[in-house]
Every structure is written in structure tokens, then in C-alpha cells.
């Protein structure tokens, strides 16, 4: 009996191919927007969450005259010979700062990293105080960072746990950073102060050792503001208590990106709601017309003994089949759209250091199933009222084409 209703529903759909295809296409489009929108929203939401935890310092303190690289996502010191005392900020007892992390940066050549003529940035940090390097770790060994370990920037090749010779000394590749979009980070080799200082004699060679490798010196400090403190307050406090430094604050690009993404999310949400409503309305109107057109047939079915529930079941089955197929096609379309998205916007975002992390596969499958179920629900809602009304009418009225 159930198969008879399914068969009737399928045949009815096949009878008006153009209309059925139009219905399927409209539902596919709506489902695609909902599916893609939901996935992108969750992914963007997650990416923003991760992005915030990965964010670099609020400002940077470097020797006056040093080059700085300010990007949207983090602050880095460019290699320079100028240095500061390692305890320069500690001495100032600055209450407007909550965290301070020193970095030593040395640009070296003929180190054995990369090809023969490649220069490499060796970046030292204090693992216990660092808050700008380790959050970028995309993969790492399952143990704490140890002396002799190095972390590679995203553009460096090497397997986790493999040996990396730096000036002939063996080091272990402990981890790798995600793409940051910042050259220093992309090509950098990160290590603890102790590991970097152990290379001092090799780096210096026959010449003078870089000033940053001295135990009491640092190339600069990455600073996080205390809650409630403003960048202006911190800058004033630093400049008034520490001589020979310049304070570099992050620009407004990051907040611009954040605001842009938030607006994008709102836009996607509005578009989803609009698409859902318009698809539901269209399906309802279409099924109203279909039921009206088929009232003689429905009346006939009632006359030969079809129960109201059977008439209703047949129409609902027809709607679920059409909108379910539409939902399925919408998911396929959504996947294609997301692949395009990945190759364009995601690529661009990652290049400027804004991470984009897709939600995991099981959740994506759940969203796909949800989109198909939602499409079916639209079909059921669309057909329910006109079919219910028709099923309540006298068979004779329907057979005569009334109602």
C-alpha cells in the first residue's frame, strides 16, 4: 500500500516534468544557500574564535630605529642589530601591561637550513611567557618543548620529530606553525632562548656574535595590555619609563576584518532566513495549484475508497520526494560553492594571516542531513494545508471539480 502511494506520487511528479524540475531547482537553490550559509557561519565563527586566541600582541616595544612588521594578525620584530636590555620593561613596573614576552631575532646565512644561499630567521622566545608563537602551532609532538627543539614556520619543510641540522648541530623538529601570512613567521625557525643561545658560537663564527644573542639582551618585546588599559596609556607609560625605545601598536586592520566577518555572518543569516521563507512560500503556492489542478483525481481516489489519511499521505509523499531531491541537489550545489569559496576567499584570508577553519566532517554531514530534512519540512508544510483542505471536502465536490 505504501509503495502504491509512493508510486502514484512519483508518477504524478513525472507527469509534469517541467513543473517538477522547477520545484526541485527552487528547493535546491534554497537548500544550497541554507547549507552553505550554515557551514560558512559555523566555520567563520570557529575561525574567529581560533583567530582571537592566536592573535599576537597589542603592541610591540623595540629599539628606536628598528624595523617593524605590523600585520593584521600579529606583530613581529624584523631582524636587526639593535637590542634592548632583557629586563627593560620589567624594571619599569608598568601596571598597564598584563603580559610581556621578549624575542630574540637573528638572520643567518649558510646555516644548513634550506638551500645553501638561503638566509633564515632564527627566532628565540621564552616558552613560559610566550603568547604569540605557540598559539600558532598547527601540529606538534605530543610532549612539552625541550632544549634542542625547533618549531618551523609554515613555509619550511621537514617532518615532525625529524632531525634538523643548524650549523651542523642536531635539532628536533618539534612543531610547525600555521600559515600567518607574515614572512618572518613563514620562513622562521623558532626555538627557546636557551636553544638559540647555544648556537651563538656557531652563528658568530669567526666574526662578532649578534648582539641579540647575549643572555641579557632582547630584540624586542611583545606586549599585551592589562584589562581596561588603553594603548595610549600603555605607550605613555612605556615611553616615560624606558629610554631609547619605540612603541608600535597594531593597526586597525584586524578590527576591520573582525567587523567585516561579523557583518558577513549577519548578511548570511538574513539571506538564509529570506531564502527559507521565499522557498517555503513558493512551495506552498505551487502545491496549492497542484492540489487544485488535481482535485478531480483526489475526489476519484476518495470515491473509490481512499481514506483522508491516504489522500494526505500521497500528497505529502509527493512533496517530500520533490523537496527531498531538491535538498539533496542543494547540498551537492553547496559543496561546489564551498570549493569555489575555498579557492578564492579562504585562500585570500589565509594569505593575510586570517585563519579559516572548516567545521569537521561529521558536523558537515550533520548539516547536510539537516538541510535535506529542512527541505522536506518545507515540502510538508507547503502541501499540508491545501492537501488537508482537499481531503476534508466531499468526494463528489472534488469529482465535479469544485473546491
Amino acid at each position, binding site marked *: 500500500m505504501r509503495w502504491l502511494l509512493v508510486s502514484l506520487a512519483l*508518477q504524478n511528479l513525472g507527469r509534469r516534468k517541467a513543473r517538477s524540475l522547477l520545484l526541485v531547482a527552487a528547493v535546491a537553490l534554497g537548500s544550497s544557500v541554507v547549507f552553505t550559509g550554515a557551514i560558512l557561519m559555523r566555520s567563520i565563527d570557529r575561525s574567529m574564535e581560533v583567530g582571537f586566541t592566536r592573535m599576537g600582541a597589542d603592541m610591540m616595544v623595540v629599539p628606536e630605529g628598528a624595523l617593524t612588521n605590523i600585520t593584521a594578525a600579529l606583530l613581529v620584530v624584523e631582524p636587526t642589530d639593535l637590542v634592548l636590555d632583557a629586563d627593560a620593561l620589567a624594571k619599569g613596573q608598568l601596571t598597564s601591561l598584563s603580559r610581556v614576552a621578549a624575542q630574540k631575532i637573528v638572520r643567518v646565512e649558510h646555516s644548513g637550513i634550506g638551500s645553501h644561499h638561503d638566509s633564515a630567521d632564527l627566532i628565540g622566545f621564552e616558552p613560559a611567557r610566550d603568547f604569540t608563537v605557540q598559539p600558532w602551532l598547527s601540529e606538534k609532538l605530543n610532549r612539552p618543548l625541550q632544549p634542542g627543539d625547533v618549531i618551523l614556520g609554515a613555509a619550511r619543510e621537514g617532518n615532525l620529530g625529524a632531525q634538523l641540522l643548524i650549523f651542523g648541530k642536531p635539532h628536533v623538529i618539534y612543531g610547525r606553525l600555521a600559515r600567518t601570512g607574515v614572512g618572518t613567521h613563514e620562513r622562521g625557525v623558532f626555538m627557546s632562548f636557551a636553544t638559540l643561545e647555544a648556537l651563538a658560537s656557531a652563528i658568530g663564527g669567526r666574526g662578532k656574535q649578534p648582539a641579540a644573542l647575549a643572555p641579557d639582551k632582547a630584540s624586542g618585546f611583545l606586549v599585551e595590555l592589562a584589562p581596561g588599559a588603553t594603548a595610549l596609556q600603555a605607550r605613555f607609560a612605556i615611553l616615560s619609563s624606558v629610554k631609547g625605545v619605540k612603541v608600535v601598536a597594531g593597526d586597525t586592520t584586524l578590527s576591520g576584518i573582525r567587523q567585516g566577518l561579523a557583518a558577513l555572518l549577519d548578511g548570511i543569516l538574513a539571506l538564509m532566513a529570506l531564502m527559507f521563507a521565499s522557498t517555503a512560500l513558493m512551495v506552498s503556492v505551487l502545491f496549492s495549484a497542484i492540489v487544485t489542478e488535481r482535485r478531480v483525481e483526489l475526489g476519484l481516489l476518495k*470515491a473509490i*475508497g481512499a481514506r483522508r489519511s491516504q489522500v494526505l499521505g500521497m500528497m505529502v509523499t509527493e512533496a517530500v520526494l520533490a523537496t527531498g531531491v531538491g535538498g539533496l541537489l542543494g547540498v551537492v550545489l553547496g559543496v561546489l560553492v564551498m570549493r569555489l569559496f575555498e579557492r578564492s576567499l579562504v585562500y585570500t584570508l589565509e594569505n593575510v594571516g586570517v585563519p579559516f577553519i572548516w567545521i569537521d566532517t561529521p558536523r558537515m554531514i550533520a548539516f547536510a542531513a539537516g538541510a535535506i530534512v529542512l527541505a522536506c519540512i518545507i515540502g510538508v508544510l507547503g502541501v499540508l494545508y491545501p492537501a488537508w483542505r482537499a481531503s476534508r471536502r466531499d*468526494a*463528489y465536490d472534488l469529482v465535479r471539480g469544485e473546491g
Partner: protein
Amino acid sequence: MLSCRQLRKSYLTERGDVTAVAGIDLEIEAGRFSAIIGRSGSGKSSLMAMIGGLSRPSDGSVRVDGVDIWGLSDDALAAFRNGRIGFVFQFASLLPTLRLIDNVALPAMLGGRRVARDVYDKASTLLGRMGLGDHLDAYPSEVSAGEQRRAVIARALINDPALVLADEPTSDLDEQTEIEIMDELLAVNRELGTTLVLVTHNLSLAEQAQQIVHIANGVVVS
């Protein structure tokens, strides 16, 4: 077999209530062939719809084999129509997307009480009896109007009904086909003992009936 008491039907239109049937009492014995005649708009089709459980009366009752059919629930009435009454309408009432054999089997399948194979065997036998044994797999659009009407008669018989209601079953057919269709219906009445009620405005068809009910302006006039 069939008993109607003070049966009334009025329709609400833009110009107010229109009375189609104005209090009809009717008795039809089991196994008889009865004809309900009258001019167009006399109320004969409305009467047949109420007798067949297709249109709810405004007032009065219809009893078929002692069952007050309009006192039944929707589902029970549907089951009653399905099992006890066969319909032959004045139009070709076959589902266009189903083959003739599927159309004939449909009422039995909707009833859900019989095995599909038995149903299809019977549908095949009935279509063979109607001279459509070679057209089991044909779609309605692939056969003539007369053949369609014969398939409708086969469908009306699939559940072995006690009562067959035929509403102008030959109205759009040529004379020869009309005779063939009437022969089929009369054979059903005589050979199977099925009560046959024919609604028609064709007096020559009505003359073959054992009981003639003449309706005018919604009341029985003779």
C-alpha cells in the same frame, strides 16, 4: 438494500441556498436494476452522490444493507465505499498515470485487505471479461473512450460490491458503444446479482430497468 428517508441537499451559492434534492424517500431492493431519470439539474446526480456516500446530505438518512452510511466516521465511510459500492462516473475516471490493470486493482489495493497478486489476478480476469485482456498494460490515453468506460466498470467490480452506481455512464459515447456498455452493466446485474442504480436522462436506457424513479426539481414525481 437501499433506503433513503427525507433526503435533502442544498448548496450555498453566491445567490443564496439552492436546493438540489428536496426530501426524497426511496427504496431499492437488492439485486434489482433501477434507473433514476430526470432532466439536467433535476437533482438526480446529487441524489446518487448522497446514496453513494460521496456527498453529505443536508438532511435525511441513507441506509445500505441496514447501515446508516452518513452516521459512519470518515474512515469507516471510506472503507464502506471501498468494499460495498462500485462507481461508474459520467466521465472517464481513470488515473492517467496508471496502466489499465493498475487502475482496476487500485480500489482493492487501497482497501489493503488482499494480497497484491490475488488482486492483480482478479483485475486481469475482469478486464478479460470486459474484452480488454489484450490491453492490461495500456495506459488510459492509449485506448478508446468505450474501452476506458469498460475498464471503469471492471474497476467498480474489483471488490465485489453489493451496489453499483452508474451516473450517466454513456453520456459521451456513440450509440454502438453505449449499447455495449449497457450490455456490460446489465450482465453484471443479472449474472452477479449486483444491485445496479443507473442515473440517466436517456429514457430508452431507463426502459430496461426494473424500477424507474423520475425526479424533477429535487423531488420524486413518479
